[in-house]
């Protein structure tokens, strides 16, 4: 049984269909990529899955529970964590306190403070932020702030992690580090859904890719299939006819 499943999901903003009748599922332990041009509805889909928004029609089931009836904090405690496309850290809070907060309120609440501290330190060690743990988040570099978003999400001990463009704005060396981090998260057995524009990362990390365009799913398949799909190439690069004509 899939860990997360979307059935006929639609969401409108005013008259605009941000998502219309989207169907897909994620299996336990899988890395699923979500790509598509700007405005395709990728982040809206993340907002729906993490219960920040409710779909107008269709259902999203996480571990066989309808997400519609949960708030964001409940779904987090059930084991679904996310990061944000535009960094949403707590600027004046230290890096360590981000992770401690996550351990206190995440999937295993009721931790004692030494337990929370230990769990937080492990998380920071895992993502590589141990050396800056006493620094307020606003003083970190962008790459480290994105890493901190991942740490805060991981600190809640999720079963499924939604990563929203964690590589955008990073330099090649930082992208390589972020890719390596994603692999290590997957190796822990955590299911991952990632939105990314860095194609190198998507193609090498994902088991399966979904392509969204104008709120509709236009393709789904292995990286190989997506890279050779004519429909996808058309969406990204335009028609051959147009390219040739004046």
């Amino acid at each position, binding site marked *: 049984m899939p860990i997360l499943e979307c059935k006929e999901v639609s969401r409108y903003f005013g008259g605009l269909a941000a998502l219309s009748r989207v169907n897909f599922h994620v299996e336990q332990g899988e890395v699923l990529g979500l790509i598509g041009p700007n405005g395709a509805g990728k982040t809206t889909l993340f907002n729906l899955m993490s219960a920040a928004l409710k779909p107008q029609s269709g259902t999203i089931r996480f571990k066989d529970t309808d997400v519609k009836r949960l708030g964001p904090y409940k779904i987090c405690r059930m084991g679904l964590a996310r990061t944000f496309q535009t960094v*949403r*850290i707590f600027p004046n809070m230290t890096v360590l*306190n981000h992770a401690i907060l*996550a351990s206190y*309120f995440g999937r295993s609440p009721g931790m004692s403070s030494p337990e929370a501290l230990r769990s937080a330190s492990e998380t920071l060690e895992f993502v590589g932020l141990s050396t800056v743990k006493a620094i307020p988040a606003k003083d970190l570099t962008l790459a480290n702030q994105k890493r901190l978003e991942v740490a805060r999400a991981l600190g809640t001990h999720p079963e499924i992690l939604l990563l929203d463009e964690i590589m955008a704005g990073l330099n090649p060396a930082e992208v390589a580090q972020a890719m390596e981090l994603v692999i290590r998260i997957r190796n822990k057995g955590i299911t991952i859904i990632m939105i990314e524009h860095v194609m190198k990362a998507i193609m090498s990390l994902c088991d399966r890719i979904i392509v969204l365009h104008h709120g509709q799913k236009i393709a789904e398949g292995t990286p190989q299939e997506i890279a050779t799909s004519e429909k996808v190439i058309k969406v990204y690069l335009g028609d051959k006819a147009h390219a040739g004509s004046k």
Partner: protein
Amino acid sequence: MDIPKLISSKRFVLGFLFILLVVLTTLPLYAARYSIVLLTTIFMYVVLTVSWTMFSGPTGYVSLAPAAFFGAGVYASALLGFVFPLPVIIVVGALSSACLALLVGALTLRLRGIYFVMFTFGLVELLLHFILWWEVTITGTTGRVVPTVGNTTVYYLMLTILVMVILTTYLIKHSRFGLALQSIGECEEAAAHTGVNVTALKIMTFAASAFFMGAAGAVMATRWTYIDPRIAFNPILSFLPVLMAIFGGMGQLFGPVIGAVIFTTLEEFLITRFPYYYMLIFGIIMVVAILYLPDGLVGLTQKLWNRISGAKYADP
């Protein structure tokens, strides 16, 4: 010995607080009556300011409702003054304030920024006029007499509430909920996605802060002997706690305490020395404080302190 290290050591702080508490509890035995009365007023403002900071400090939700919660406590005293003993009245006053806060919080804590500020201030006016209307048309009075209990009793009651509110704020601040409240203030959306039940936490903390304001109102009413809706729901009691907290600085727990103490003393001094110009002088001091002391008196002291001891990211 290293003096900065000594002063910031835990033992020194605890010792200092203990001596302060001993002095304050024994004060009515030898101090003049005037200073007891003045200190009670100061305590009242400290209670209002610290309980305001308990909720509004970390979350950034600026509440202008203190006068409403304080007034609810005052009216509990006025209505039940001749029926129940004072401790019961204080608890009833505190609880009715807290219930009011639960109700108002559930309705309004979705509002952010200026909308929340305006609503909470509207609440003060709403209660004021509702009770005014009630008293005039239903009960046929405007004011009520509250039984007095003596200056020393009022002093000790206010001191007890003061110690309780400071202790509660300290415990919240250093618990997981203090961290969660800070996360709400810095980015509420991310806090919710990190598993914090933001709505429940905001409402509960709002109610806890109202609890102490109501208790202070119930005690203070006994000193005034006569109250009417305009005394009980005086809007200035909504603004002063905010100003005192800003003046003292909200980064540390003792900021609002120091702010309230200095502010009240200053007000008393200016009223007696410059009865005609006191508001003007007061206004100038406030403007200067807001412009040049963004983190309040405590922030300024800390900045100087760090320069002396040369610390930046010291472990807490």
